[in-house]
């Protein structure tokens, strides 16, 4: 495993691999032929791994989605696109570091990238406000989307946020208004919008840049109306109930695909994106290419109608 940070549920697998290593060391040292045993154990480990990862509890997927080594927006921008030119500011208050945006080339053609950006180090995370945008982040996003619309440049949004920043400054400058306006205006943007949740899709703060023609998720990302911790604290008044909350909220990619909330899942390596960046970049590139090709044939009207219809139909209710 490439990662140095391990999660609880990985322990049985790690134990097995440790045993295999020990066996190998022993065999080398003593000159014994333990090939067969090692083979058997490796096979067992692989089976266990598959079994564990294919049956992860939602709360463990929540942990994977927040994994400190998980690729963040900047990694995708750097590795999938060329000539990224960051464009700053909302033209009225500030430049939010939790949402980055800019022009880049993808397979030779221009795209506008709007992405929520966390950090990997504490310093980076403080600079990025832990990926929690303030109003000016959403306003910058809208400004850049309008720029893209003006020049017929497709938009790609990458979602990775615990939520909009729940702070005084954020409320003062109208974070609710900023998110609301994006929800309204993104529906009418006359270029393709492809949205991918790459880590945490935290509530309205995520939705505020996720009004795509296609909305996708990476396998182990989450998208939720509230964090499982917040939900448990409110409904059960007991943070210990987060695992159950995570299950009930239906926040994992497979469930959301089944519910029709998202359209596609971009496949991660079995053990998570953080274990093999290259693999996930390849999948992401292929996914974006397919989507951009598809929508390049749509007229303005088809694009906005398709996007409207996509969101119009969401929500289950009974009608007598």
């Amino acid at each position, binding site marked *: 495993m490439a990662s140095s940070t391990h999660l609880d549920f990985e322990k049985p697998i790690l134990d097995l691999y440790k045993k295999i290593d020990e066996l190998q060391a022993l065999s080398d040292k003593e000159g014994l032929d333990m090939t067969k045993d090692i083979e058997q154990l490796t096979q067992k480990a692989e089976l266990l791994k598959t079994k564990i990862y294919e049956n992860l509890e939602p709360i463990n997927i929540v942990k994977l989605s927040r994994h400190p080594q998980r690729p963040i927006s900047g990694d995708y921008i750097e590795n999938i696109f060329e000539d990224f030119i960051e464009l700053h500011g909302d033209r009225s208050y500030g430049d939010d570091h939790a949402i980055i945006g800019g022009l880049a080339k993808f397979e030779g053609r221009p795209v506008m990238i709007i992405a929520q950006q966390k950090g990997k180090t504490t310093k980076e995370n403080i600079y990025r406000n832990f990926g929690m945008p303030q109003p000016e982040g959403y306003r910058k996003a809208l400004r850049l989307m309008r720029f893209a619309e003006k020049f017929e440049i497709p938009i790609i949004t990458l979602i990775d946020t615990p*939520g*909009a*920043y*729940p*702070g*005084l400054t*954020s*409320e*003062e*400058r*109208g*974070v*609710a*208004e900023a*998110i*609301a*306006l994006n*929800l*309204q*205006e993104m*529906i*009418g943007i006359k270029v393709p919008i492809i949205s991918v949740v790459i880590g945490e899709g935290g*509530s*309205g703060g995520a*939705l*505020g840049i996720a*009004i795509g023609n296609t909305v996708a998720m990476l396998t182990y990302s989450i*998208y*939720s*109306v*509230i964090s499982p911790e*917040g*939900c448990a604290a*409110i*409904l*059960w008044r007991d943070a210990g*109930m987060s695992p159950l*909350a995570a299950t*009930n*909220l*239906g*926040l994992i990619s497979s469930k*959301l695909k089944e*519910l029709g*909330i998202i359209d596609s899942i971009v496949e991660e390596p079995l053990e998570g994106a953080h274990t093999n960046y290259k693999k996930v970049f390849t999948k992401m590139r292929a996914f974006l290419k397919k989507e951009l090709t598809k929508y390049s044939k749509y007229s303005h009207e088809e694009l906005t109608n398709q996007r*409207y219809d996509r*969101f*119009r139909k*969401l*929500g*289950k*209710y*009974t*009608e*007598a």
Partner: protein
Amino acid sequence: MSILDWFATKNSANKSVTSKLDIPGNLWIKCIACGETLYSKDFEQNLKVCPKCEHHFRLTCHERLNITVDADSFIEIDYDLSPADSLDFTDIKAYKDRIVEANKKTGLNDAIITGEAKINGSDVAIGIMDFGYMGGSMGAVVGEKITRCIELATKKQIPAIIMSSSGGARMQEGMNSLMQMAKTSAALYRHKQQKLLFISVMLDPTTGGTTASFAMLGDLNITEPKALIGFAGARVIEQTIKQKLPKDFQRSEYLQEHGMIDHIVPRNKMKSFLANIIEMTNYHKQKIEETETVEQE
């Protein structure tokens, strides 16, 4: 996030009910804001506003409807929509049971009524939320009814008015609930494209995903005095920033100073205010229609 507000405000909601029940026979009630004892009938006649301190008590959606639209003009739509438990959600109570209880308590199928009505003779599509039904939370029914109400307004080329009081998205419906923010805002996009009027009236309390979608998108955003309006819950914010919040934080007056609210309208002026705005924004269209009628004659 959104639901924290619901809980925070739920307590004060209960308080106001309790203080009413304290007095036997309900002839007298005590103002929760200033402590004044009020004769129940006077209080009702004053539209549930304390005559002493002008505290605006919460109204049910039907009480609100009665004082907002012309008598007998309301034609309800989509009353037969009721919630589905698509996630089989259970916390300390099953969502299914919560639905039954809320219905029993309020007589409503969900936290909003919608329909067509007249205000001083002008046609409007109107939706009024009810905080009494699960804290006015927005699930798929609320979202669908608001969306249809706005679509009706777009189709009939008339103004839309949504009067919100809501704790935000309804957790028990998971992401289906969150998506109502997008759906309602999308409907407003099309309404706006037709140059039609949308007035959002945010009533105490309007928070979370409701504020962060249709409620903030009015051509005019209106509220009553001292209503609680915000996105994140005050307690969450205090935990985040480790500071006390300003005294009037997330109140109407605070939001107006911060540029989010066009006008704070006392309850007894609300109907005439709405009528005035509708008249002024209809003026040009009506003038043209009159001219066309004359020309046809």
